[in-house]
C-alpha cells in the first residue's frame, strides 16, 4: 500500500528533520510512529502527504492517483471558523453521495445536535472530533494521523480511541498514527516504529500481536511498554 524508501528531510543544516526512513505499510495495517517531540514525526507526515516536497528518497503508493491517496488529520483541528460543524465535516468532499454520509458520521463521533454550531462554540475535544470526522468522510486510502488526541483529557481520549477502532473495523483504512503516547500506540497499532534523535531516525520496530479490541491493562502490553521505555531511555545513546 505504501512503501517509503530511504526518505530524508533535513532542516537547519542537519540538526532537525528526519533521516533515512524506511517504512512499508500493508493494506489495512495500522502502524504507529512513536518518538519524543522534535524528532521529525510531523515532518514525516508532511512529506508523505505531499505538503512538503523538499525531501530526498522515494515514496510509492499502491494507488493509481497518489496525490489523492492520503488523508491527513493534523495535530490541531484546523477547522474553518466560518463553517458550521456539518459544513466543516463535508469540507472538500467532492462526491455528493458522500455528503449524505456526513450525518451518519456526525452521530458516530457523538456530535448529533451540534451540526449547526460554529467552531468557536466547541470544546477542544469536540473540535478534534469534527476533525476526525472530516478526515474520515473523504475515505482516504491511507490515513495519516498526527498526535490526534494529544491535546485531550484522558476520558475524551479513550472515547475517541475506541471510535477509531470501530471505524477501522468497518473500513480497514491503512493508517499511520504518529503519537508520543506509548499506551495509545499499544492500544491501537498492529506495529510500532520507534524514532529518536535529531534528525530523527528509525531506531527499532515491534509487532503487537494481540487481537483488537485490546484490554488497556493487558499484561503483554505492559511488557511491551517496558521494552519501549528502555528503548527510549535517554541515558542510552
Amino acid at each position: 500500500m505504501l512503501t517509503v524508501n530511504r526518505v530524508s528531510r533535513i532542516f537547519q543544516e542537519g540538526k532537525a528533520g528526519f533521516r533515512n526512513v524506511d517504512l512499508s505499510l500493508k493494506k489495512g495495517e495500522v502502524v504507529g510512529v512513536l518518538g519524543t517531540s522534535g524528532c521529525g514525526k510531523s515532518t514525516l507526515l508532511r512529506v508523505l502527504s505531499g505538503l512538503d516536497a523538499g525531501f530526498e528518497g522515494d515514496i510509492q503508493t499502491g494507488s493509481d492517483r497518489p496525490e489523492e491517496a492520503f488523508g491527513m488529520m493534523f495535530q490541531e483541528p484546523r477547522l474553518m471558523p466560518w463553517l458550521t460543524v456539518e459544513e466543516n465535516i463535508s469540507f472538500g468532499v467532492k462526491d455528493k453521495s458522500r455528503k449524505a454520509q456526513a450525518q451518519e458520521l456526525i452521530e458516530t463521533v457523538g456530535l448529533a445536535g451540534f451540526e449547526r454550531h460554529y467552531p468557536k462554540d466547541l470544546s477542544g475535544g469536540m473540535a478534534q472530533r469534527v476533525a476526525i470526522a472530516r478526515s474520515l468522510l473523504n475515505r482516504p486510502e491511507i490515513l495519516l494521523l498526527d498526535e490526534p488526541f494529544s491535546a485531550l483529557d484522558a476520558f475524551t481520549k479513550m472515547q475517541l480511541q475506541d471510535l477509531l477502532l470501530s471505524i477501522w473495523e468497518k473500513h480497514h483504512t491503512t493508517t499511520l498514527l504518529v503519537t508520543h503516547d506509548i499506551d495509545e500506540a499499544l492500544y491501537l497499532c498492529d506495529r510500532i516504529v520507534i524514532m529518536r534523535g535529531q534528525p530523527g531516525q528509525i531506531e527499532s520496530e515491534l509487532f503487537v500481536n494481540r487481537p483488537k479490541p485490546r484490554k488497556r491493562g493487558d499484561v503483554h502490553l505492559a511488557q511491551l511498554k517496558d521494552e519501549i521505555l528502555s528503548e527510549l531511555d535517554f541515558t542510552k545513546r
Partner: protein
Amino acid sequence: MSSRTETAVTPSVKEKKNKKTTLRTWNSNLLLGSVIPVLLLVVWEYASRAGWVASHLLPAPTTVIEEITTMAQEGELWGHIGITLYRVFFGFLAGSAVAVVLGAATGYNKTIHRLLDPMLQALRAIPSLAWVPLFVLWIGIGEASKVTLVAVGVFFPVYLNLTSGIQGIDRKLIEVGRMYNFTSLQQIRRIILPAALPSFLVGIRSGLSLGWMFVVAAELLGASQGLGYLMVFGQNTSAPELVIGSIILFAIFGKLTDEILKRIEKRTLRWQDNVENAS
C-alpha cells in the same frame, strides 16, 4: 456540571435569555448616551432665542429643522439628497469593486503583489483631495469626476484591509485545502476569501466613511446640486440654517449607511470568536 459537559449544553435556552438582556442594556445605553446631546440642544435653543448668540450665525435647532422640513415639503431637498446618495453609491461600488479585484490578486499572487503594491502604496501617499483638480481637468466637472473621486477615497481602505487580511490568513488552513487538492480558484473561493472577510468588512466600512468625506469635498469644490452644494450655497447667502441642516443630513445618512453595513457585518461574521459574539 457533570463530567459530560461537552454534550450537555442546551444552546437554545441561552440564546433567548441573551436577546432580552441585550435589548435591555441597549435601551439603557441609548438613554444614557442621549443625556448630554439633549441637554446641549436645550441650551442651544435657549441661547439662540435669548439672544446670547447671534441668530444669523447660529440659528436655533427649531429654525434649522423648520428650514429642512420646508425644503422637503417644497420638494427641493430631495433632488439634493438624491444626487449625493447617487454619487456615494456608485463611487462606493466602483471603488470597492476595483479594490476587491486588485486586493485579491495582490494578496494571492506574490508576483502581482510585487508588481502593483509599491505603486499603489505610493499613490496612497498623495492626499486624495489633491486629485480633484486633475479629475476636473480630465473628466470635467460632471458626475463622472465626482463619482471617481469618491471611488478613489473608497478604494484605498478596502484594498489595504483586504490585502493585509489575505496575507494574515493562517497557513494551516491553506494546507487543509492542499490536502484536498484544491485548485487555485477553489483555494481563493473556499478558504482565502472567507478567511479574509473580517478585515475586508472593516475595509468596506472605513471605505464608506471616506466615501462620505470625499463626496462632501467634491460637492464643495464644484457642483450645482447635492448636499455639499447646499452648504456652499448657505455660506454664500449667509444662511447658517442651510449649512447646519446639511451637516445634520450628512450625519444622518452617514450613520444610516454605516448601520446597514454594520448589520451585514454582524450577520456574516456570526462565526467569529470575539467579544461582540460572546454569550
